[in-house]
């Protein structure tokens, strides 16, 4: 049985369809990535599934309980990590966890014990009694996640947990999410970054305009949007289109040029090995690029590819 099921969820804000027939099925114990640009409806999904908002249509169950009619049971089985770190900044880390633990119904002693366990797990024991306002962004996020795990929920919801964090803090959060899933909690993680979904999720759903437009493993999705990209930055703007044309001929792939960045981008279905072809072609042309970058498709490109197939609204 799936731990999380959403079928045909609808939510309107005035004329805007924030959720427009949203479907999702997540089996137990996995990390599922919900990928979408700003305004796609990711937060609305999370709020609907965590019983924070009423939907206008559709059904959803979390851990077997209906989010609309059995919200109390659902709340006992979920942890919510919202877009902002929702911890009390004046209090210390331990005080926060004890407070939330007691609100989850633990007695004083049990709440303290659980707080100490979580502080230890998340490497916050040394900072436990300092005010949260003195924590780094990553520490704050970890505390935030710890607060969502007090009752060892069946499902943990993370809404853009690394947006605004520096790379180091982001890595800390990623490690935390992996550990959480390893302990058997199902994780639904929203993100704007393909890279993040790729790193964490075993399955990804891409959403736009309130509904899913693609599902699959990270590998399958990337195959769907083509291979890696190589971007060559040309020193002279005047040469850009000339060089792009010659390169395209040599590589055998259409080139996308960007006048602002003086970049010529190729999709390389053959993967990394095709880079040598680009380099050779540059050599033959006698052009020394300012920069040469090999990279995965960006979310923008995933998006463009996927939405090209989507019927116009």
């Amino acid at each position: 049985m799936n731990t999380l099921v959403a079928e045909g969820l609808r939510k309107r804000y005035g004329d805007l369809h924030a959720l427009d027939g949203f479907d999702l099925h997540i089996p137990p114990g996995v990390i599922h990535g919900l990928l979408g640009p700003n305004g796609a409806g990711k937060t609305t999904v999370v709020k609907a599934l965590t019983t924070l908002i009423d939907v206008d249509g559709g059904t959803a169950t979390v851990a077997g309980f209906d989010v609309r009619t059995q919200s109390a049971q659902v709340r006992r089985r979920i942890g919510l990590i919202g877009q902002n770190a929702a911890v009390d900044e004046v209090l210390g880390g331990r005080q926060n966890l004890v407070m939330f633990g007691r609100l989850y119904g633990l007695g004083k002693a049990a709440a303290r014990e659980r707080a100490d366990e979580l502080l230890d797990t998340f490497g916050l024991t040394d900072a436990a009694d300092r005010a949260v306002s003195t924590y780094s962004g990553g520490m704050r996020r970890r505390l935030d996640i710890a607060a969502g795990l007090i009752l060892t929920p069946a499902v943990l919801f993370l809404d853009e947990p690394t947006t605004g964090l520096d790379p180091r803090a982001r890595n800390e959060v990623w490690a935390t999410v992996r550990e959480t899933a390893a302990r058997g909690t199902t994780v639904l993680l929203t993100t704007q970054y393909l890279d993040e979904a790729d790193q964490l999720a075993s399955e990804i759903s891409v959403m736009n305009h309130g509904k899913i437009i693609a599902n699959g493993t990270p590998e399958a999705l990337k195959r769907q949007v083509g291979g890696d990209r190589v971007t060559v930055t040309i020193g002279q703007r005047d040469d850009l289109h000339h060089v792009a044309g010659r390169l395209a001929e040599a590589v055998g792939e259409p080139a996308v040029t960007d006048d602002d960045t003086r970049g010529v981008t190729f999709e390389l279905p053959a993967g990394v090995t095709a880079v040598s072809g680009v380099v050779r072609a540059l050599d033959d042309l006698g052009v020394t690029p300012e920069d040469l970058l090999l990279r995965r498709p960006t979310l923008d490109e995933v998006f463009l590819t996927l939405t090209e197939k989507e019927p116009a609204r």
Partner: protein
Amino acid sequence: MTTLRAGWIITQRELAHWVREPWGPIFNLLFSVMLLLVFGFLFGGAIDIPGGGDYITFLLPGMMALSMMFGVESTATAMANDARKGITDRFRSMPIGSGSVALGRVGADMTNSAVELLVLIVGGLLIGWRITSDPGSAVLAVLLLLLLRFAVLWIGIFLGLTFRGEGATTAVQVLVWPIGFLSTAIVSAETMPAWLGALAAWNPLSATATAARQLFGNPTGITEGVLADHAVLLAIGWPLLLVAVFAPLSARAYRRLRG
């Protein structure tokens, strides 16, 4: 988890704030004391009280009522901050009764204001204010003051849940001043231009201030009119009316978070 128990846990969070960051509440108290001294000694000499009496004894119950009313601002700010930072959403995603958040706010703010009242009472006694009535009336006066605080608490919860931006907080901070001054808290309505005086007499703050003066046995600055005759009744009726309006509005605003 019962709503009551959850409310108490959220109240304790607030008490823990005071221990961690005592300067905020201390400056708040000092501010009340400063207002008391400014009005009592700086302006006091220039203010006449119709019906006679010492200005400090007239002023004290007014300052108490004023500080209860100004509490609306701290309630609204606290509610708006929690909503903005996502703490309210975290509470709402937990298995606690839907009244818990408001109840926690009530517990915290009533405690806060009770302390403030105590400081004003002690401070007042130090600068010459006296209670000349019986203990029963004095206790009733204190209860009426706290009732006013309870009433504006619901206005604060409503405002904090409805207007969550920082600008809204500032608006409340500014607006409490004209409302506070357009009352008999600091000057007698009978020394104001007639229309202003009439307006001030109908300010709920004036009802509580006047009732407290009567019950403490202090000069009221009012010699005639509805307020003079029925201050205690008005000081009960106004806050109850405010609660009757703003508690349901607050509940509705809380439900509206469900979008």
